[in-house]
């Protein structure tokens, strides 16, 4: 675990210096929110209607911004053979996966943290139940990143990685996106965690399965 944290810290230091992923994710996410707010300008005064649109808009922004970021997740490792340098180290391959998952999740949380206030302003929205929303976003993002990191490693060595990643990722994250969107919708309308317990259970099970599977199969995705 210690080595995974060192890998995550290295990735975040690298990212904060280059801002390759963060800038593109943030800009993409904001563009999505702005475009939707312009498209729905006529219904923004109808709170009930906005409540139905909001979860979809948020998760479209998070999912596509996240996919964009994940496609660059292993780019730094491919330069100068750094991934091979890591593979030569006496660490378990799953440490690389855990480290990368942590750093990708942190970057997504930063983007989400910056996107939500702008969403609130543009959609003239009054969010209640912040802890519940944070929990749903955390679980949804973690599930998304668990699968995404694995597939990012898989597609990193292919020539068409920008196309390959979304083609592989989007069908696989449907089981996490559907409960996340539903739970976000419920939280935004009535704010109670108790009313989303079945979605939360689904998200937790999905996160656990993919995080464990990711650790088990990561070795094969980075094998020469």
């Amino acid at each position, binding site marked *: 675990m210690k*080595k995974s944290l*060192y890998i995550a810290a*290295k990735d975040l*230091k*690298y990212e904060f*210096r*280059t801002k390759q992923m963060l800038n593109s994710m943030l800009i993409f996410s904001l563009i999505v929110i702005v475009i939707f707010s312009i498209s729905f300008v006529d219904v923004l005064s109808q709170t009930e209607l906005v409540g139905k649109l909001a979860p979809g808009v948020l998760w479209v922004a998070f999912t596509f911004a996240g996919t964009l970021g994940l496609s660059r997740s292993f780019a*730094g490792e491919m*330069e*100068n*053979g*750094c991934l*091979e*340098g*890591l*593979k*030569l*180290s*006496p*660490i*378990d391959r799953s440490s690389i996966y855990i480290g990368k998952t942590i750093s990708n999740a942190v970057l997504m949380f930063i983007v989400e943290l910056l996107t939500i206030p702008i969403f609130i302003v543009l959609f003239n929205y009054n969010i209640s139940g912040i802890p519940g929303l944070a929990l749903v976003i955390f679980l949804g993002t973690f599930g998304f990143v668990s699968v995404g990191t694995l597939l990012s490693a898989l597609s990193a060595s292919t020539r068409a990685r920008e196309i390959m990643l979304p083609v592989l990722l989007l069908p696989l994250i449907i089981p996490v996106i559907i409960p996340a969107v539903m739970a976000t919708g419920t939280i935004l309308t009535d704010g109670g965690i108790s009313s989303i317990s079945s979605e939360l259970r689904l998200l937790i099970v999905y996160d656990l399965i993919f995080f464990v599977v990711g650790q088990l199969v990561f070795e094969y995705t980075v*094998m*020469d």
Partner: protein
Amino acid sequence: MDSIISITGLSKSFGRRQALNNIDLEIKKGEFVAVFGPNGAGKTTILKIMSTIINPSRGSVLVNEIDAKKHPEKIRGMIGAISHETYLYDELTARENLVFFGRMYGIENNNIDEKVDSILKSVNLLQRADERAGSFSRGMKQRLSIARALLHKPEILLMDEPYTGLDQHAAANFERVLMSTGDSDVTRIMITHNIERAFELCDRMLIMDKGEIRFDKLKTEIESVDDFREQYLSIVEKDTDAEGISNV
């Protein structure tokens, strides 16, 4: 001298292509072995199997009598690797790169700074320790990659075409640093196309072709560089256009 690497019946195939074919090889502790051969001869594959990056199709590799298949992490801890790729993060400073890789090799936090400074000094990069690796020249990057490879005091140093991209001066500088840094009993294995330089440095010369070791002699058994070049050409020329031989 005792064997540090013991390879028996090693074969590797990628699909239908046979990269290594039933190789037996013993390498003694402290030896400096140069491996030559045309592209596709299986040189890099054998090095990757030794470093446990890839698994063999058949056969075994023992390092210090430890089975590479059963305990790959132990083996990786004994090995340092230098390649034509630097394995360095361009956006991190020289010091940050070494601290990161030092931690990957289990060097404890309380003495990592001291070790990093000491090795940076030995490769003449201490004064530029806080500059980004990406801003370094090719020669400096290669010196930093020696530091990265030797930081954890490996028993075996694997080098895959380390001269690639280095000019004459940088290559000479690389050799000076390579021979003066690290313990004297480090076992070194180097893949290269540079016969002259390898002949100066090495104790033993191997020629591989088509996944087999076709020549294996101590330097003392070879009369001269020209004699070795002739041998190389006679082995390789039959099947190829003797690609990958260099006088530079």
